[in-house]
């Protein structure tokens, strides 16, 4: 009896009540535009409790006050890093990459002056698989890559994901959809089934920390011709989707394209964009 009591006291149980979950959910939504459904409760609680333990808070209330009023905002960023899902792999939704090289790049060039750089933004880029896939696809499957400068900017809200992206080391699962010859040509095998992307390709993507819902971050994101924004808006509610859509609109040159995830539709969010149906994919275009 005494022994078990001591054991309980030495490792205090931390719980997040329903009301505390609601508080956190509302706050997190207000700050990021990401809303957790009730089905995500376990996922959210687990991560909140993990952070409380790490920073030495035994209750939600004091921890939440710490998050809310910390001037640096570092702890909130830690939570964002933990709460955002980073599942991705090379050549995911490859039909859109095909569309990029088969149709979009040609249209983009048609409206550019000779020698002008084409700019592509991958958001959210997570651990880098998407922007590197774009780079690989352009190098291997776009026959005009030697004639044109292409700049690839990749951003994510998660600074840890960005560090991994810059490091360019990927698991076996992450590269499993790549053709073996591409794997051989651009990656160096490492122990444990990992693969390191070659330096040249890693240097071809400019990774930046950007919160799509924060105007301070997005105001510098301009003059893009193609934006990959896949499987992000689906986590936003209507108001946040509209704001994000306007941000993407502002970031594009006239005639520029946005590619969303397969389950997402810009038409349900805003009428700012024109729907374009290409052979490989449906894409949204900022009017010329």
């Amino acid at each position, binding site marked *: 009896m005494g022994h078990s009591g001591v054991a309980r006291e030495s490792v205090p149980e931390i719980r997040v*009540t*329903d*009301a*505390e979950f*609601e*508080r956190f959910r*509302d*706050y997190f939504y*207000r700050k990021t535009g990401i809303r957790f459904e009730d089905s995500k409760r376990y996922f959210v609680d687990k991560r909140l409790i993990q952070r409380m333990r790490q920073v030495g808070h035994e209750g939600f*209330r004091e921890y*939440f*006050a710490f998050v*809310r*009023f*910390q*001037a640096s*905002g570092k702890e909130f960023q830690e939570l964002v890093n933990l709460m955002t899902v980073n599942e991705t792999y090379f050549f995911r939704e490859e039909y859109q990459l095909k569309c990029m090289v088969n149709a979009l790049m040609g249209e983009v060039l048609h409206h550019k*002056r000779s*020698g*002008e*750089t084409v*700019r592509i933004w991958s958001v959210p880029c997570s651990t880098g698989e998407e922007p590197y896939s774009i*780079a690989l696809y*352009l*190098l291997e499957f776009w026959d005009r*890559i*030697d*004639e*044109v*400068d*292409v*700049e*690839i*900017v990749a951003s994510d809200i998660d600074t840890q994901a960005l560090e991994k992206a810059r490091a360019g080391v990927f698991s076996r699962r992450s590269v499993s959809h790549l053709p073996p010859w591409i794997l051989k040509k651009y990656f160096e095998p490492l122990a444990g089934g990992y693969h390191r992307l070659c330096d*040249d*390709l890693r*240097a*071809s*993507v*400019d990774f930046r920390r950007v919160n799509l819902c924060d*105007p*301070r971050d997005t*105001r510098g994101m301009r*003059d893009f011709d193609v934006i990959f924004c896949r499987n992000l808006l689906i986590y936003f509610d209507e108001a946040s989707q509209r704001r994000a859509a306007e941000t993407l609109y*502002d970031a594009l040159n006239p005639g520029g394209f946005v590619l969303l995830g397969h389950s997402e539709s810009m038409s349900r969010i805003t009428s700012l964009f024109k729907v374009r149906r290409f052979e490989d994919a449906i894409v949204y275009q900022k009017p010329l």
Partner: protein
Amino acid sequence: MGLVKRAEHRAAPSRPHIRKYGRDLQGLLAQLHDDQAKARRWAARDLAAHTEAVSALCERLQVEPDPTVREAIFGSLLTIGTEAVAEGLIPLLRGEDAGLRNGAVEILQQLPDAVGHRIAALLADSDPDVRIFAVDILQDLAHPDAPAWMLAVVEADEHVNVVTTAIDRLAEVGTPEMVPAIQAVKDRFPNEPFVGFAVDTALKRILGNG
């Protein structure tokens, strides 16, 4: 040709447009009044690099008809983020334009150092609308005194809308120690049915039983 490398990005940011105007401070300030909204917008954006431009940006906000230019001005003011920005934006809280007021609140929320020492004056303003906007600023101000300021509003402000706004905000950050003060609001405004609802809702959140 090919993929541009990161170092090249930094050395030569890809903006191949040929600049029509000078991009120095005087040129940008002049373009802030250009006939073309696009020129004004880019001027507003580039003025983010000039702390001296705060008053010009704030003045332009009050007459700027294009929402995309306003957005750029707010963005630049936030980037600059000085005391002068807070000083320039606070008068907008008294304006009739809801878009400008909301924009000002959003920027001020992000400037705890510049705004913190101005909060007491805002919360003591004779205009209850200004006091409500001050509470709105507190909602997202990363300042350790924010809950105490909101509690003081709950305890002392005489306008029911100001008090219920503060109660609503305290529902997120309030603590059990604040419960008596929040509960007492019902007695201060016995003829306002909404007060009871606001208090009960906040208490449920704070006490964790709702």
